[in-house]
Structure formats: structure tokens, C-alpha cells
């Protein structure tokens, strides 16, 4: 519990660092935001007025602290393109991203660890070779290309699954409908990460099998299946956990592409749209929000690691 609080506190400097980077990168944008927002109404008086409203007439440092103050209170400003509070838009979109990335993350962790372990345990057999080959092909397929090919095959030719979106436009909206829409994007998003996890798992299982305590288990007459599930996997999960934390970042990054390919209404697609429309506050808020979530997620991984490995003091 003590450690829990300590770890949360240690995230504060990182989060502050993120706010600084996000704020200053965005404020490097050339041109006058007020002019951009007002468009054809940009008379000098209006620009001056809006600049005062937005606090843009103040110094950079001062503006950072005002922005930070608002941020802490949950005020990320207003999106001028959507004409609604940035936070409302993000929260709505983040839900969709979370469903997609979360599913993909669970998929890549479970499947990756599983096939990596099987591959190691059946090293040099035909099973191992098939898995190794599939993994190699999988990690070489860019997710956005894979997504497009899946749409062609499963949605257009076989018509098993819907082409895109999160819910059917007519009559959809229930859980089954969501699953139906989720299958393709989640698999496309998970594939590369699954391959990476499987590879690392395979190597780490092979290394663990050489350890003295595995010999002890065998000397006790433990069946090979139990050696694998009770002895090897226990250790493997602890060594792979930090890798899974990293994969979460890759999945989150990949979701931007997958959301575009499958028209998934998530944060990634929102960000790309916002960049093309130069909706700066939305970009700023979106990047800040997702980065903060990722930091918190990694703390959770850390804590889980500590829980699973009692040797860490």
C-alpha cells in the first residue's frame, strides 16, 4: 500500500514533463490561432478580443501555468471545429479506443504468451516451425495493410463481418453487434504485438528451462505438463510483464491506423482529423489525455509485477 502511493507520487514528475512537452510543442505552431479560429471574421478588433479571451496576450510561461491550472480542473478548452469542450469529445472517443486497444492488448498477451510457450516446449518440431513462420510473417505485415486485406476477404468477399464502424447503423447497438464489429480491427491491431510477445516468450521459456529449479522439479518426478504450467510459466509471466507494458504503447499507437482503416470512432481518428483541420486544442488535449493514461497503465503493470514477484523489495 505504501509502495502504491509512492509509485503514484513518482509519476507526477513524468506527468508534469509530459504537460511541458505537449504545451510547448503545440505553442510552437506558427501563425495566430485567433485568426485561424475566426476565419473570415478576423478583423483586427475581433482578433484582439479573442486573444484576450484565450489569454494569448500573456507570456508563454504564464500561459503554461494557466493551461496547467485549467487542466488539473479538467478544462482542456473548446474545440473550435466541433464547437464543444475538448474533454467531452475525448471522453466519448476514448471509450471506443479503450474497447479496441484493450481487446487487442488482451488478445496479444494471452495468445502471444500461449503460442510462444508452446513453440518453446515443442522446439524444432513441426508445430514450432509453423508458429515461428507465422509469427515472422505476422510481425512483417503493417497493421493498416493487414486491416485492408481483412476487409476485402472477410467483409467484401465472404461477407462474414461488417466492413467498418463500431455499431450497425440500423438496428445495431447491442453487445453482440459490438463484438461483430470488433473482431477484425482487434485482430489486425493485435497481430504484430502478438508476434513480438510470442517471440520473447519463446526465448525466455527456453532460458527458464535451463534453470536449476526446473531440474529440481524434474528430479521430483513432476510431469512435463506440470513443469510447464506450474514451474516455467510462473517465471515466464514475470519476465514478460514489462514487455507487455511496452506492447500496450505499440497497440495504442497502432490503433490510430486501425481506427482510420475501420472507421472506428476513437481518439486516434479524432487526432488525425484534428491535425488536418488544425484544431489545435483538440490535438493538445487528446495527446495529453492518452499519454497520461499510458503512464498510469504502466504504473499498474509495475504494481502487478511487484505483486507477482515477491523477490522485488
Amino acid at each position, binding site marked *: 500500500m505504501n509502495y502504491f502511493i509512492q509509485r503514484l507520487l513518482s509519476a507526477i514528475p513524468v506527468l508534469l514533463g509530459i504537460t511541458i512537452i505537449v504545451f510547448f510543442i503545440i505553442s510552437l505552431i506558427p501563425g495566430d490561432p485567433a485568426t485561424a479560429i475566426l476565419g473570415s471574421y478576423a478583423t483586427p478588433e475581433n482578433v484582439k478580443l479573442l486573444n484576450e479571451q484565450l489569454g494569448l496576450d500573456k507570456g508563454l510561461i504564464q500561459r503554461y501555468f494557466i493551461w496547467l491550472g485549467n487542466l488539473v480542473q479538467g478544462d482542456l478548452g473548446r474545440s473550435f471545429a466541433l464547437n464543444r469542450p475538448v474533454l467531452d469529445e475525448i471522453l466519448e472517443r476514448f471509450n471506443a479506443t479503450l474497447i479496441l486497444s484493450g481487446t487487442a492488448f488482451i488478445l496479444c498477451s494471452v495468445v502471444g504468451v500461449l503460442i510462444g510457450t508452446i513453440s518453446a516446449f515443442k522446439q524444432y518440431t513441426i508445430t514450432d516451425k509453423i508458429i515461428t513462420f507465422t509469427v*515472422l510473417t505476422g510481425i512483417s505485415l503493417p497493421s493498416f495493410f493487414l486491416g485492408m486485406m481483412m*476487409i476485402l476477404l472477410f467483409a467484401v468477399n465472404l461477407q462474414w463481418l461488417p466492413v467498418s464502424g463500431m455499431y450497425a447503423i440500423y438496428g445495431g447497438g447491442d453487445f453482440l453487434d459490438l463484438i461483430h464489429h470488433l473482431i477484425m480491427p482487434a485482430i489486425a491491431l493485435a497481430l504484430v504485438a502478438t508476434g513480438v510477445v510470442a517471440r520473447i516468450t519463446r526465448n525466455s521459456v527456453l532460458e527458464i528451462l535451463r534453470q536449476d529449479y*526446473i*531440474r529440481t522439479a524434474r*528430479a521430483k*518426478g513432476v510431469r512435463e505438463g506440470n513443469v510447464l504450467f506450474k514451474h516455467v510459466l510462473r517465471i515466464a509471466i514475470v519476465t514478460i510483464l514489462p514487455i507487455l507494458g511496452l506492447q500496450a504503447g505499440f497497440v495504442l499507437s497502432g490503433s*490510430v491506423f486501425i481506427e482510420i482503416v475501420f472507421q472506428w470512432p476513437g481518439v486516434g481518428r479524432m487526432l488525425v482529423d484534428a491535425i488536418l483541420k488544425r484544431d489545435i486544442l483538440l*490535438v493538445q488535449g487528446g495527446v495529453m489525455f*492518452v499519454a497520461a493514461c*499510458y503512464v498510469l497503465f504502466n504504473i499498474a503493470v509495475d504494481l502487478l509485477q511487484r505483486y507477482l514477484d515477491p523477490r522485488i523489495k
Partner: protein
Amino acid sequence: MINFLKLISRNKLALFGGILLVIIFVVSFLSPLLPLKDPDVIKTSDRFLLPFSEGYLLGTDHLGRDLLSRLLWGTRLSLLVGISAALISATIGSILGTIAGFYGNKTDNVIMRIIDVLMAFPYILLALAIVAVLGPGLFNAMIAVALVNIPFFARNIRGVTVTIANKEFIDAARLSGMSNFKIIIYEIFPNILPVIVVTISTTVGWMILETAGLSFLGLGSQPPQADLGSMLGEGRSSLIVNPHTSYVPGAMIFLIVIGVNLFGDGIRDALDPRLSKGELVKPQPVTQIKLNKNVKNNSNSFLSVQNLTTAFEFDNKLHLASKDVSFDIKKGECLGLIGESGSGKSVTALSVTCLVASPPGVIVDGSVKFQGDDILKMNYEQIRELRGNKISYIFQDPLSTLHPLIKIGKQLEEAFIEHNHQKNKEATFKGKELLKLVQIPNIENVWNSYPHELSGGMRQRISIAMALTNDPELIIADEPTTALDVTVQAQILLLLDTLRKERGLSVLFISHDFGVVSQICDRVIVMYGGQIVEEGKTENIMSKPRHPYTSQLMKCVPHIGFGKRELPTISGSPPSITYKKEIGCSFSSRCLIKKDNCLNEDIKIVQKGDSEVRCLYPHE
């Protein structure tokens, strides 16, 4: 460098990846010289022609532009942009990493904290933010990708620099009055360059993919200029009706990435020391058994080992670790097996139930008869039934031989559950009884502890309890007291000795310490260079060692209360395990009474007084 290339070329897949990459590079970079159509010429009458149409090998896109030409030009652009991004981030990242690693302290702290923060972003977010600032465009996308990858380089290079900066030749350069700048350029840089090159080669594929990704999103190259990503992005709008406009660029991206991956794997494997040492090969549950000849074993002893020869196989050569080892153990007897490390005693002990890790272990000869049945002729299931049941082991260092993440209780119950098919309740009862037997205080606490929470002595008691779980008839104890301090050692020995006498256990006790062996063993075998050199009753060997090795080894044992004396050692070192067949006495090079004929032929073990000894000139 040549070795390195050899290593890579030995790996066929890596070679294939390398060749694939070279072809793609050469063809795409020659595209300005090739007789291709202009990639940007629009001909709407030829829209969406399929591949292999007349005049268009790969067909045309939505504006009737030649896809082959666009593909090659696009590949060239993607490669150029990806490689430039890699070079930029490698340069800046390496400079930052070197500065942080070389100067250390505050400089290091500041740089690394910033790097940490940058690494806290999922990479695409940072790239998107940078593109948002700079505006869409291929050059800007490249800058974004380059910047996003700087932290990765900086971190890697810093790590390497720190190790190099602490080496002696850097101190020497400092003392000779070289400036810091010169040291970095002339001393550090040449040493980190290989690391930089390897890091670039393993990340360049990734950066090509990232820039293609940004272009795919419409944030990279802008029309009419096209790289692979934007071609794929354009193809997407006609995906359903004219999928070939997507296949073509998509397949090229796939080929580039798989080429980089195959080649990168080859580099990684070539550099991975674990692979060359065979540490990434799964050890089989039973040692590989390839018996050359049928060893006759008519002994009716409780355990009878005949001509046991175990080898390690490296590069198809057999390196013998134990040669023709033969001994018997009677019911209730304790046999000591003594020798230096590398003498083959542990390999012999593990071979009894085929526990030598395989590969590389192979049992090439011998017979191990246990209660009348030859273990080397059993199948896995039969051997498994013996292990931890009738024959159990106690290993040397319980910190590494107990599972670090399983509670003591669970580990104790396991052997019982595996062999008796009974529920946890009985196993728990039995386990706690055993803890009482090995005099563990505070049983409930220990039961729920992890190995690292206990003392060395406690852990070894638990190993003993674990070995006793299924009332074994033979215990093989491989240096069970070596990792312990002297007082604990005495307690453990006493415990083992009492248990053995109470339960009529047979024990094979492996040690390098005559003092320990003399306390509990009835008989002793001395091993040297994989062979038994002397065998006899403990008191006979202790009072009258016949083999020069035995006597020299015993002189090395310090005695308390005998005043100051120089502690003798055996000069030289034991023979290393080799695949070469060596004739004659293996101890001759260190022997004080060696004669010329010691190396003429292999020496047989013969009766001498009360002991058996493998020496032409044994002590009288």
C-alpha cells in the same frame, strides 16, 4: 567483421532477407535510369487497368498512372525517407547518449529525465503532435519520425558509453592530457560505432514503416508525390472495386519489412552469446541415451552402476565427462563420491536418473541397475515414476534449486501429489510432518514463505524434507552442504546421518571435502578427470590413501590445532573435458611420483591392500 558476415551468411533466412533487401534497394534506386513511364502522367482513359495489362505490368491507378513506375519511385522515396530519419535520429541520439554517458552526474540526470518523459509517450502520439506543429508533408513526417526515435538511440548509446567511459584506456587518455572532446572523438566514438550501426540496421525497417504510416494517414507525402504509404492510402479509397491498387504498394511494404526482419534476426542471432552456447535449446526431460555396446550387469546389488560413460556433445563431437564409472551401493549404505569440480562426480550423480541436461548431455555407455532393473533401458514415464519417489535428490544451492516464486508448502507437497494421485490435504499433512522431522521451527510461517525469505540452512533443511517426501530408498545428495557455513553444515550432516540410520536409506553423497565425507560415509570413491581413481572403505582411505591424487588432496585439508603450517595445494589444474582420446594416467601432469611409462597405456583399476586404485605406483 568477416567472422560476423560468415555468421550471418550461415543463417539461410538472414541471407535470404539480405538478398531481398539488396534487390529492392538496387532496383528502386535505379528507377530514374530504368525505361519506366513517368509516374505522374495522368491518363484517365487508362484508369484502373489490372496488372499484366498491355503496356502496364502492374496496371494503373485511379488516374491512369502506371503502377509499376509509381511503385519503384515510391519505394525509392520511402527508403530514402526512412533511412534519412534513421540517420538523423542516430546522429542526435548518439550525441546525446554519449554526452550523458561520458559526463555522468547532473548532465546525465537532466538528459535522461527528458528522455524518460519522451519515452512515456506512445510513439505515434508524439509524432502526431510534431506533425500537427510542422503541418502535413513528407519532410515533416520524416522529422517527426526521426525525433520520436531519438530517445531510443540515446538510451542505448548511453548504456554502452557508460561501460566504455569507466575503462582503463579512457583514464590513461585523461592522464595523458587529452581534452574531453578529443577523448570522445578518438577513444569513445570508434568503440560505440558498431553499436550505432547495429541499432540503425535493426530500427531502419521500423522507421520506414512509421513514415509510410504517417503518409498513409495523409500526414506525410502529398500528391502528386507518392511514397508507399500514400499509395496505399490512395488505394484504400478504391479498395473494394480495384484492390490491386492496394495490393501493389502493400506487398512492397511487406517485402521490405520482412527483409529487414529476417536480416535483423540474423544479426541479432549472430551477436547473441546464448545461442552459440546452446543456452536456447530446450533440455529434454530425460538425458539422451545412445549406448554403443551392451554392458553386462549381473550384479544383484541395490544399486549397481557399470561402465557409465556420459558425454557432452558440441559440434558433433563427444566430450567425455565421466568414463567407465562403476560402483555398487548396498541397502542402507552411504557411499561418498569425492573429487574437484570438473571431475565428473555431479554428472555421474545426475546420470543415475538421466537428469543431465540434454542437449548437450548424452549417455554413451553403461548400465544403471536399480533393484534389478536397468534405468537406462526404461522409458520416460518409468524413469519419472522413480524420480522423487524411490530415488530422490538433494542439490547444492537451494536458493537456485528451489523455485523462487512458489511457496515452500506448495513445493513440498508437489512430489507427494505427483506420485500418489492424492488430494492436497494428505500432501499438506505429510509436508508439515516432514518439516517437523527436519527440525524446522515455526512451521506455519515457513510453509507460507518464499525461498528467498529463509536462511541458507533452513532452505537446505527444506530440500532434505522435499527429498524425503515419498520415503525414498536412495538419496543422491550433490554437495548438500557446500553453500553453508561450518556450524550449519555440521547440523545438516548430523540430520542426514540420523535420518539415514533411522530409515535404512542408501545415500550417494557427493562432495569435494574429505572432512565432510569422513563423517558420514561408509565407503568412498575418488574421482579424477572423469574416472574413478580410488575406491575403498572410508577409514582405509583416510588412513592409507593409495593413489597419489588422493594423498595430495587430503594434504590440502586444513586441520584445526596443528599450528601454523603452509597449506599445500595441488599445482596445475585438472584436465579439461575434451573430445580427444588421451592415453595414460590423466593425473600424470600434476603427479609428484610420475614415471615415464605412466602415459604408455590406459591404467586399469586394481586391488591394492584394502582398496582399489588406478595407479601403476600406488603408495604402500
